[in-house]
């Protein structure tokens, strides 16, 4: 898949804010960010209340996704351009989610809110209203989603790519360093996983590194392109960013995102866990 099919630049985006058939969608971890100013014409999706089942720890089902996109005024034929904060963490999560339910044309705004803001591009607070549609989703594409049993079976077989920070990987921290430390019952990583923090795939301004740089980074970390791959982090959004890099930019064919990630795996009874930096130290 070419980079141009899955990424758009901030400059392209600004030129296409009013292009019919192109819908900008903001998805932030900080779900108040949109309200303080958003890309003109963009609609907001709240990942906590609109992409998550309100009771079970799971996604909204197919009918729920159809209802959501219909209410947002997104048609099956639209090109959806996703962007957000945290270097596009949750925009990448939403991108993977749109792919999970079979949306045909979806792209990431390279660099997300960060690049947009650093460029000084316009933001506004206008309320965006789009005419409702009748959206039809597909069944979940489980070729891109991994569940816990498959992850356990993948130990020592598939590429397991842990995209958290080195201190989370080694078990020193249970959460990113900008958060209070809580969450999973145990620290560490899945045995045989390699540690390639998501941030290695991004430039300082939040845009993705070139394919040559990405190939070098994953190759030097021990990624084996001939193997199937599962990426994970803590709750599945940073690993969506890496899934995007591996599957959408580099074109590796069999790459799954494990959205249960460490908050699930690190709380399971009896599964193997490895501590340390994974290099025998």
């Amino acid at each position, binding site marked *: 898949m070419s980079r141009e099919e899955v990424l758009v630049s901030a400059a392209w985006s600004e030129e296409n804010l009013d292009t019919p058939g192109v819908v900008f969608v903001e998805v932030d971890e900080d779900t108040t960010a949109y309200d303080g100013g958003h890309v003109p014409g963009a609609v907001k999706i709240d990942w906590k209340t609109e992409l998550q089942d309100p009771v079970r720890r799971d996604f909204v089902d197919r009918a729920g996704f159809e209802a959501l996109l219909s209410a947002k005024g997104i048609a099956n034929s639209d090109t959806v351009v996703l962007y957000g904060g945290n270097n596009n963490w949750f925009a990448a999560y939403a991108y993977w989610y749109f792919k999970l339910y079979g949306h045909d044309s979806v792209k990431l705004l390279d660099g997300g809110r*960060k690049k947009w803001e650093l460029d000084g591009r316009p933001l506004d607070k206008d309320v965006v209203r789009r005419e409702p549609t009748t959206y039809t989703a597909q069944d979940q594409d489980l070729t891109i989603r991994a569940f816990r049993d498959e992850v356990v079976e993948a130990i020592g077989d598939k590429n397991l790519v842990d995209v958290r*920070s080195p201190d989370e990987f080694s078990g020193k921290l249970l959460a990113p360093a900008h958060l209070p430390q809580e969450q999973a019952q145990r620290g560490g990583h899945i045995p045989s996983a390699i540690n390639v923090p998501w941030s290695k795939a991004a430039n300082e301004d939040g845009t993705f590194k070139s394919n040559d740089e990405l190939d070098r980074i994953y190759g030097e970390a021990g990624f084996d392109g001939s193997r199937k791959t599962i990426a994970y982090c803590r*709750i599945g*959004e940073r690993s969506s960013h890496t899934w995007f890099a591996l599957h959408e930019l580099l074109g590796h064919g069999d790459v799954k995102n494990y959205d249960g990630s460490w908050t699930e795996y690190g709380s399971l009874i009896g599964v193997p866990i490895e501590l340390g930096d994974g290099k025998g130290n």
Partner: protein
Amino acid sequence: MSLDGCGAPQQGVDIAVGANEVVLSGKVKSAGGPVGGAFVRLLDSTGEFTAEVVSSPEGDFRFFAAPGTWTVRALHRSGNGQSSVSADGPGVHPVEVAVA
């Protein structure tokens, strides 16, 4: 913060710091005034990215780190800047970053 999020808590408000927590806390400034909306990155002693938050309207930021020497780097449309801070143990370690 709860299981369902990965975003930073509100920056610049008082928080309870646990007995074993290493907290780096400070402000982004420009010409002496606070800079809100800056992208503040925490880099470890090898320069590796560890975390990022957006400074509050008052320029405040905070990281929960491990003991060690850290670089705090701020990016803003008005300019960039960075500072180092040594956090040798639990507690709140102040740091200020000027962007220009």
